[in-house]
């Protein structure tokens, strides 16, 4: 028998869900509103909601004061680059752990995940020294590699869960059909895991896009992505909330739009193949 849900209960849950959703969305809404206020309206107390003189001056100021296109370009290169590199390394890794597991496969997986628990600041010095020694400070390639390494455990884990869902017999069939390892991964495994790989790619781009610790600390001018671009508006001479908000909106707009269009894939990615 289906569970009986009364109309009243349904309404209650709907209202609750909306309230919760709005609560989560509020910071973005507030940033959006603030970005159209003057600096004085932005810090007005009590806060002004919708009825103020909407202005674009913050956006103009942000454009004038900094190089948005360059930061955007850096963000794109770093997030997409680190994701592609990560996928190239993670596919064979996840393949081996999903289809030819050894005695220690589970341990390796857990160990990889445990590296995510390491406080990032703990490796800050070694990494900065290493980067300086290699002469790659403030370079895109450094950020691509570092962000790839940081997100690699998640990419491997996600791909591993997707690959586990693929029946091994199909891969065996491809081996019987004369496929070598390269063909097996390229023509059979990858197309079958494509939805999973797509989710992983999307999620990883978002993670890399939003990563602020390393991107701010390892860059100054040349490789500074949007996260550093936002940070530059919380200047020592005081906080300019309206400009900061405008910069934030410009920084999150691309990823917000991408996320909106790929909601379905993302949900699948975030549920980690829990639902078949």
């Amino acid at each position, binding site marked *: 028998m289906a569970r009986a849900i009364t109309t009243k209960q349904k309404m209650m849950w709907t209202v609750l869900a909306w309230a919760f959703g709005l609560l989560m969305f509020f910071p973005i809404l507030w940033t959006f509103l603030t970005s159209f206020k003057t600096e004085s309206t932005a810090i007005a107390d009590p806060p002004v909601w919708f009825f103020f003189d909407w202005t674009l001056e913050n956006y103009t100021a942000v454009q004038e004061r900094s190089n948005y296109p360059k930061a955007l370009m850096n963000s794109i290169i770093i997030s997409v680059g680190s994701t592609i590199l990560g996928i190239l390394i993670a596919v064979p890794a996840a393949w081996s752990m999903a289809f030819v597991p050894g005695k220690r496969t589970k341990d390796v997986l857990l160990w990889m995940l445990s590296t995510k628990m390491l406080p990032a600041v703990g490796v800050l010095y070694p990494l900065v020294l290493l980067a300086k020694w290699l002469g790659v400070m403030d370079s895109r390639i450094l950020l691509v590699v570092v962000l790839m390494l940081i997100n690699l455990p998640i990419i491997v884990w996600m791909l591993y869960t997707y690959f586990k869902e693929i029946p091994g017999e199909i891969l065996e*069939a491809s081996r*019987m059909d*004369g496929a070598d390892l390269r063909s097996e991964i390229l023509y059979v495994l990858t197309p*079958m895991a494509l939805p999973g790989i797509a989710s992983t790619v999307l999620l990883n781009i978002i993670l890399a896009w939003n990563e602020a610790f390393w991107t701010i600390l390892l860059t100054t001018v040349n490789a500074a992505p949007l996260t550093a671009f936002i940070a530059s508006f919380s200047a020592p001479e005081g906080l300019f909330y309206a400009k900061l908000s405008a910069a934030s909106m410009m920084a999150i707009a691309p990823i917000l739009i991408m996320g909106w269009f790929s909601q379905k894939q993302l949900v699948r990615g975030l549920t980690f193949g829990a639902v078949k």
Partner: protein
Amino acid sequence: MGQITLNQVTKSFGEAQVIPPLDLEINEGEFVVFVGPSGCGKSTLLRLIAGLEDTTSGHISIDGKDATELPPAKRGLAMVFQSYALYPHMSVRKNIAFPMRMAGIDEATQKAKIEAAAKALNLTDYLDRKPGQLSGGQRQRVAIGRAIVREPAAFLFDEPLSNLDAALRVGMRLEIMELHEKLATTMIYVTHDQVEAMTMADKIVVLQAGVIEQVGSPLELYHTPRNKFVAGFIGSPKMNLIDGPEAAKHDATTIGIRPEHLTVSKTEGAWKGVVGVAEHLGSDTFIHVHDTGLMDMMTVRITGDIEARHGDTIYLTPLADQIHRFDAQGLRIA
């Protein structure tokens, strides 16, 4: 093409040896069935031949060449899996084409072979569908089509009919036998169903716990089972195995009598019992007889229909020349 020899092949998973040293000769063009209860190592044996599992020791040669270390792709064998193992993202056409694509065969030849295979397997109308849109029987035919176009030295079938319903299974069984007649290629077929083994095989290999219990033609196995295990496994319903004084009368530890080699009477006979369940198939009747004092439950197979009600007293008499005798080790006494 299609001569396969196994020489002292063993397989262990960790500490557990699932295949003790095993020798087997499979001749060109033979239809060989590996049969045994689940967990007897028959699938492992097939996978060793396929190259999907590595042998722990011993040698496998295909057409005289040592194939022990060859990867599956290089052995020139084709396999049909129980789960069909079709590529879900490819159309039927692409599924069948896949092995040829891997072998680098030109498009025109591929096309001709696909058409021919599709025609032979009644798949012409389904070539552009995806496996998900096909029925179980059709999927199995696609899997067979994919195997045929490789023109393999031998076909390996791993319980290919287990996922099909009973009616379809009989049909596919005939199709596979037809295919064997037509191609005359070596086929190795794994099943736990002794009826499939009996009806399809030129040669049956009965396995138990990784050990070959007997190799022979279906009728050899039926008439002269080498031991109690084979006697009990081959034939349906199962052979009745009787221990004790009744066996001693025949100078044996155990005697076996097949259900079809017992005659039934309501008035007199060698052994007396009580009718349990009677299964009426129309052509035959299986009667399960209790309280014979010889074994828990004896099965009798009578041609045609016979009236037998639950609780009736019944007399059974074995055909004297059809009694199988086994010694204390369970081996046949000639």
